[in-house]
């Protein structure tokens, strides 16, 4: 079963990217998950991994080409797919081979698609491997192609054809192969599609979990009831607005907020970070008993430090020793920063703000305490200057005060990494051969694997954990 190599979708606004280079040549063996090619957007370059293992075939784009997202630029042929080509190749080399080759077994993974669906797919330029088959015997039929068109937002909305309106992007199956037809009765499917309801999210109550007419009608009832309570028919009104991804339920929102201003900025940055980095999160548990005691003594002695201040100091020391984590990616250049300017995630009233504490490594705890207090106060009051919110080299985010143990922070682009600090909690812990109550904390480090590998990042986190456990080393 050949797998199409697709240009990945990048964020919501990127339609075309530049193909920078291939890591593999046509005919090379590739392994699923290894970097296959490099693309460049207006903001970054990024490796794209091979979607399957096999032989790279039918490469249609060369470095420098502008390629559309979701377009196929090559195929990865499975070994069995390749057998025919290899066989014919061998036959030419050894034309007198007497023994006839055994007939090739029927390819179990060939694509089944109705002529009508194939015509439509070819007209629209749709990669068939991406279309989810729901037809008889697992074949792709017209409605599947139309569902894909709708989902990809390139459909002929006005054609009035039937079987439209699922609003669901056809999702390729995991192996790109065949799948049982949609587990829904025809009448249920029709009712759902006519009402613009995404039946794929429904739980079926029929035989073998089949979605029945009753299931669909119940979902529609829930939807309309929600719409009435909202005092508007809004939920019903736009079944055709399928460009939005399907929501997970059919209740109308309790209230609606415009995605604008700071919310829009946050949304844009987060999705960019999430889609354009190669984030990996490492977690480690550290014994913060000594850190808790250190803070108690400092506060008792009149130095009003927060845990954030202590973590800033710890990070500053660790970053000085691990400069690869104090870095940013600028185009194709990884920049290692001399200064250590750490952003501090602040839960302000209108959303997340990250004011930056400058030169953290050059400041004592007392100064850090004063500065961060003023800085976070200005952030919460919405009075930070743009300069105070830009130019960080690393970010610290602390959800411990909310009782969160561990999480997967999102990298604050263009930085390399972010440390998430969980709550400090007394837990029974083995010390040598006995259990003691210790103040434990989870540390969550998310780093961009494009800039740094797992080993250096792990060593950095290990050092941070060590400084948490033995804060006197901050003096060393």
């Amino acid at each position, binding site marked *: 079963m050949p797998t199409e190599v697709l240009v990945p979708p990048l964020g919501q606004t990127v339609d075309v990217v530049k193909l920078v280079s291939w890591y593999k040549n046509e005919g090379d063996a590739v392994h699923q998950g290894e970097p296959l090619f490099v693309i460049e957007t207006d903001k970054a370059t990024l490796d794209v991994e091979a979607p399957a293992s096999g032989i790279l075939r039918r490469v249609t784009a060369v470095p420098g080409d502008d390629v559309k997202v979701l377009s196929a630029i090559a195929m990865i042929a499975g070994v069995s797919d390749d057998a025919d080509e290899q066989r014919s190749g061998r036959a030419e080399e050894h034309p007198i081979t007497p023994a006839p080759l055994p007939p090739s077994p029927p390819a179990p993974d060939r694509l089944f698609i*109705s002529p*009508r669906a194939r015509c439509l797919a070819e007209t629209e330029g749709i990669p068939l491997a991406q279309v989810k088959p729901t037809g*008889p015997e697992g074949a792709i039929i017209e409605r599947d192609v139309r569902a894909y068109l709708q989902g990809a937002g390139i459909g002929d909305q006005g054609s009035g054809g039937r079987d439209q309106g699922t609003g669901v992007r056809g999702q390729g199956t995991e192996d790109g192969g065949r799948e049982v037809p949609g587990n829904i009765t025809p009448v249920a499917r029709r009712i759902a599609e006519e009402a613009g309801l995404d039946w794929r999210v429904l739980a079926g109550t029929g035989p073998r979990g089949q979605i029945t007419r009753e299931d669909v009608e119940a979902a529609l009832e829930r939807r309309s009831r929600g719409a009435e309570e909202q005092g508007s028919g809004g939920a019903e009104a736009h079944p055709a607005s399928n460009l939005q991804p399907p929501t997970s339920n059919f209740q109308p929102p309790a209230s609606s907020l415009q995605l604008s201003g700071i919310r829009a900025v946050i949304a844009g940055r987060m999705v960019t970070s999430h889609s354009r980095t190669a984030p990996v999160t490492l977690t480690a548990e550290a014994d913060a008993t000594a850190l808790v005691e250190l803070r108690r003594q400092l506060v008792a002695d009149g130095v009003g430090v927060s845990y954030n201040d202590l973590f800033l100091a710890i990070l500053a020391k660790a970053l000085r020793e691990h400069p690869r984590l104090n870095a940013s990616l600028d185009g194709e250049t990884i920049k290692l920063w001399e200064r250590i300017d750490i952003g501090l995630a602040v839960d302000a009233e209108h959303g997340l703000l990250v004011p930056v504490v400058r030169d953290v490594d050059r400041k004592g705890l007392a100064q850090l305490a004063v500065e961060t207090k003023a800085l976070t106060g200005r952030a919460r009051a919405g009075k930070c200057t743009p300069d105070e919110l830009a130019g960080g080299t690393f970010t610290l985010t602390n959800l411990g005060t909310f009782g969160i143990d561990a999480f997967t922070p999102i990298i604050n682009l263009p930085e390399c990494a972010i440390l998430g600090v969980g709550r400090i909690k007394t837990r029974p812990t083995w010390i040598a051969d006995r259990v003691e109550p210790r103040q434990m904390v989870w540390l969550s480090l998310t780093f961009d694997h494009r800039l740094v590998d797992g080993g250096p990042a792990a060593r950095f986190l290990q050092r941070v954990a060590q400084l948490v456990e033995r804060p006197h080393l901050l003096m060393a």
Partner: protein
Amino acid sequence: MTQMSIAEALRQAIREEMRRDPTVFCIGEDIGIPGGFGGAFTVTLGLSDEFGHDRILDTPISELGLTGVAVGAAMAGLRPIADVQYSDFLYLAMDQLANNAAKMRYMSGGTVKVPLVMRAPVGATARGAQHAQSMETFFCHLPGLKVVAPATAYDAKGLLKSAVRDDNPVIVFEHKLLYGSKGPRTEKGALSPVGEVPDEEYLVPIGKGIIRRPGKDVTIVGKLLTMYRALAAADILAQDGIDAEVIDPRTLVPLDKELILESVRKTGRLVIVEEDNLTGGWAGELAAIAAEEAFFWLDAPIKRVSAPDVPPPFAPVMEQFYVPSAERVVAAVKALF
């Protein structure tokens, strides 16, 4: 408008044509004998009272003989309406129909016309293997014959009148369960559709099919009894959200190909329902036409719902299994979604 059965509509068509044209006459077995049924299914009942035994000709039980007389009369300028009691008996008349009626016009370079009508009842009706076959396919295969298969009273009258006026031999297949024959010729389990027939003169052109039920999800083609099976299936399918279009071709040769292809291009699916045996059947021919001419419009395999490749069984329960049911049509259609 008058409500009437197919048997009555056919009788009215013959009566009108015989009144209109003195060259029209009927020939068959027991079609006009006193105290008879008026043919096997009452179509010619009472016609000998009006037209006499010179124009309602009863013959010995010799299908080859009566067909030969009819073909000869047609070649000589008369317009015979011949009939056999059961279409199964057409095998006995095959030489006259296949070698003479179908070929004379070609062999004579068009100078000899054969304006013959041959009526023949088809369908399994608890009479066993030799009185139950559906013979349409054989005659569709013979160039030179036209073949019609009316399933309603309106079409029966209009098509028979067109057949009488056609200068080529026309085989008219009629279904025993659709006649609406009365009295001792009442058929068990008959549908006997009664339909409106205009009081004024009209013709149904040979070669024109009709959409019996418009739909957009699947095209089901049925003729004679199976057209009704298709309609029943469409009703069941509608409850399941499948909107079936039912087409009655009415004429099998020449086929209203474009009507069927247009429907298939719309729905993307084709199911053909036929009472005849599967192999080499009319359904297969339609499937081939659709595959050749509408392949790229198909969204699912073409499906035939036919009788299995065995003779029609005599046991009623076996016969019910043999003749395609609405349920079988429903199952075939659902498998395409």
